[in-house]
């Protein structure tokens, strides 16, 4: 029986999904707060950081191709380390799901249902998350292959129609809040590209190392283009610091674009994109949660476990009192959990694994042989 691989197109879309989820909500405002008028430079800076990290990790990963990150943990520190790392991943995905669910529910409440209770809005997302994950990963990833291109198209249409409002003079001062500020505080925004490290977890679905590098590069490049175009539009249309108030920067842009007189309510495109991306991102995040838990606990009662996890996410998402609290938690989680777990941990683990390989070659060969037999 042939091994089942996911198409490159679908997996790239799955990864871009992570970037779009931030882009469609608060990413432009975060960039603007850090870099002021120099959002484009910040975007280029994070792009270079992400590319460097991709280059380093792919070099380190070369000798372990085909083995998932969790198995590499097992190679380094046995089952104990494996379970510890999986638990951290589980916690990261879980908290990200909780906070994003609340953030998106709040956003939809503000934009569409101002009198509806937030708990009612969240239910729709939770139901979709649970049912989709019960259905399986294949469907989620194939769905991203359809949703992401449509959402990108909506965003591009929105931005193209705002071109007449753009003014290059609004980009001055060109260094924004200052080079030092951008280089230090801005580095945390590498989180916009966090999805490429997931490749090392789902690697068994990718045909070869070359493809993995190509997927990573294409993902980072497309994400960079999307982020740059959006922050450029936001900064060049709304004068700094006024643009810091645009929580839904893309929404404001879509309202502005008007799409000429033929399509008066053009913000509907934004609403559609927001709904599509929110659903697919939450479903993907929840897949991360269920994948981590199923790596620890092998059971046939997936339906019950997924339902319980879904309900827990729903309950926890209602704990923050308001959206500002959600932003604070998100910033905290990003700095102290997401970045260490998604960027620093894989790099460190791969580095240690390579050192161990150099020290004890026979154990490495035995491990590789064992893993390839298992697959």
């Amino acid at each position, binding site marked *: 029986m042939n091994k089942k691989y996911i198409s490159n197109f679908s997996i790239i879309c799955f990864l871009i999904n992570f970037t779009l989820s931030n882009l469609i909500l608060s990413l432009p405002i975060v960039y603007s707060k850090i870099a002021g008028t120099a959002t484009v430079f910040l975007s280029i800076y994070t792009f270079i950081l992400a590319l460097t990290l991709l280059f380093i990790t792919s070099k380190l990963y070369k000798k372990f191709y085909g083995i998932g990150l969790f198995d590499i943990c097992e190679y380094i520190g046995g089952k104990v380390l494996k379970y510890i790392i999986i638990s951290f991943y589980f916690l990261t995905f879980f908290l990200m799901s909780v906070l994003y669910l609340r953030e998106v529910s709040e956003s939809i409440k503000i934009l569409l249902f101002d009198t509806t209770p937030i708990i009612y809005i969240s239910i729709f997302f939770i139901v979709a998350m649970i049912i989709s994950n019960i*259905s399986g990963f294949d469907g989620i990833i194939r769905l991203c292959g359809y949703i992401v291109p449509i959402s990108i198209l909506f965003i591009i249409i929105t931005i193209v129609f705002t071109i007449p409002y753009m003014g290059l003079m609004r980009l001055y001062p060109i260094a924004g809040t200052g080079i030092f500020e951008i280089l230090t505080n801005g580095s945390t925004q590498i989180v916009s590209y966090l999805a490429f490290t997931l490749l090392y977890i789902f690697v068994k679905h990718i045909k070869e190392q070359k493809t993995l590098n190509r997927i990573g590069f294409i993902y980072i490049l497309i994400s960079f283009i999307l982020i740059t175009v959006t922050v450029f539009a936001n900064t060049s249309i709304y004068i700094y610091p006024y643009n810091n108030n645009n929580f839904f920067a893309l929404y404001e842009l879509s309202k502005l674009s008007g799409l000429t007189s033929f399509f008066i309510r053009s913000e509907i495109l934004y609403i559609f994109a927001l709904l599509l991306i929110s659903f697919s991102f939450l479903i993907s995040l929840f897949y991360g949660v269920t994948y981590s838990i199923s790596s620890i606990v092998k059971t046939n009662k997936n339906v019950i476990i997924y339902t319980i996890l879904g309900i827990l996410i729903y309950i926890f998402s209602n704990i923050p009192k308001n959206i500002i609290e959600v932003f604070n938690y998100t910033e905290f989680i990003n700095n102290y959990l997401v970045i260490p777990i998604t960027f620093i941990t894989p790099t460190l683990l791969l580095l240690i694994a390579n050192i161990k390989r150099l020290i004890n070659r026979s154990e490495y060969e035995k491990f590789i042989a064992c893993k390839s037999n298992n697959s």
Partner: protein
Amino acid sequence: MNERLKLKKKYKNINKMIHSNISSNINNNLNMLKEIYTSNLNTDCIFREFVITVNNIKYNSFIIFFEALSDSDSINQHIIKPMIEKEHSISNIDLKNCITENIITHRNIEETQSIHDILLKINIGNCALFIDTLDICYIIDTKKNEHRTVSKPINEVAIKGSHVGFVESIQSNVGLLRKFINDENLVLDKYKIGKRSNTACIIGYIQNIADPLIVENVKNKIKNISIDYLLNSAQLEQLIEEHPLSLAPEIISTERPDKIASHLSEGRVCIIVDNSPYVLIVPCTFWDLFHTPEDYNLKFQHSNFIRFIRLIAMFCSLLLPAIYIALTNHHVALIPTDLLFSIAAIEETLPFPLIIEILIMELSLELIREAGIRMPNSIGSSLGIVGAVLLGQATVDAHLVSPMLILVVAITAISSFATPNYSLAFSIRILRFLYILLAATMGFLGVFCGGIIHLIILANMTTFGIPYFVSFDKYNKQPFRDMITLAPIWLNSFRPAFLNSLDKIKSAKYARKWDKKKGNI
């Protein structure tokens, strides 16, 4: 109760007889068959007894056949007449061979000893000949080929395509297929389905194109069906589909041989069922349901235009009422101001909430549609007009529903007719109600929630090992060549990638050789 027990015992005995062999005593055989066929009641089952003389020895004989299924002329001319007309004197040959070689003049004779086989053959119109002292029976092919002549497809009309459709006879359908494919690699593998009905069924594929795994998968499913009677291909469709609970059709059913030929040439497998004018094609993806044979007969620009229209039609048919409800009930800010005022002015005078209005109209439409199908043709069209006038004009005049809603429902109804696949149109009709309820509950959020779950379920489905909602890059090596859009025939050089065909290229890179010389492509 006693009677029931007697009957049960009788049928148990008959079942034993069926699974035995014939004896050399003709009377035993005659009595047994009379009992099996209940000859005192079944008047169309003919037992004709006669005597033949071979080398001056007289042998009692009889033939058995069904009057309605067998060709009487053929029986008279090729069996009865040569046997009783004269005395046969043959040397150096035994009676067994003498019958087939010297007496019966029919071209197609088989010999068998199994009662079960004999019954199967008689049931489909063959004639069985029994001769005293012989422990074998001769099966002579005397089937009457009475069926509807090959005619236009009734439900799949094409303007520029072929005007030939399948009929109820499996032989005619096989002939049509062979004529269209004209390839020695076309394999038509015959099977029997149905413990009692023994319905003939043929699995067709082009052996050096179709993926052996798919072919094996289909054969496996067909072999493992355990059912008493299989009456047509629609029943088989339900028996072999992988997700019986799904609303979406997983198998294409068509009455057009050109469509079958086109799919077989891509590496798919067809299933022909006796007595059914519809042939099944597997595997099928979601996007295949939007394709029609007409697409490939038109210029590619025209085909793309109608495919685009079909997609819009499907979208309207599924979501238009839901979007209308979502906009007017929950997201009025997204409606242009002028339009919003006119909708609000009309809705103000109406007694029911919008959801009730739309459900009334949709249910009435379904009612008219169902009644129109059951009515005789001549009345059916007038029912449509009456329905339209009654429901449309009268409900508006009575201030029960708004004219805007009538327009929405009318566009939805017209759109549903534009969906090329009947089963898909059906599933859309059912799902439309679900989307209406979701839209009424939570506007676009509800619609998108339903849509995402719906799409994920579709995307997770596989049919015969192939993803049902196949992704863009897996559909064709050159994406968009024949999925949603259609490329010109001379640029469409690859078979769909997901079918994993043995021969992946269907035409040369330069199908128009002269273009290569000019360097036009």
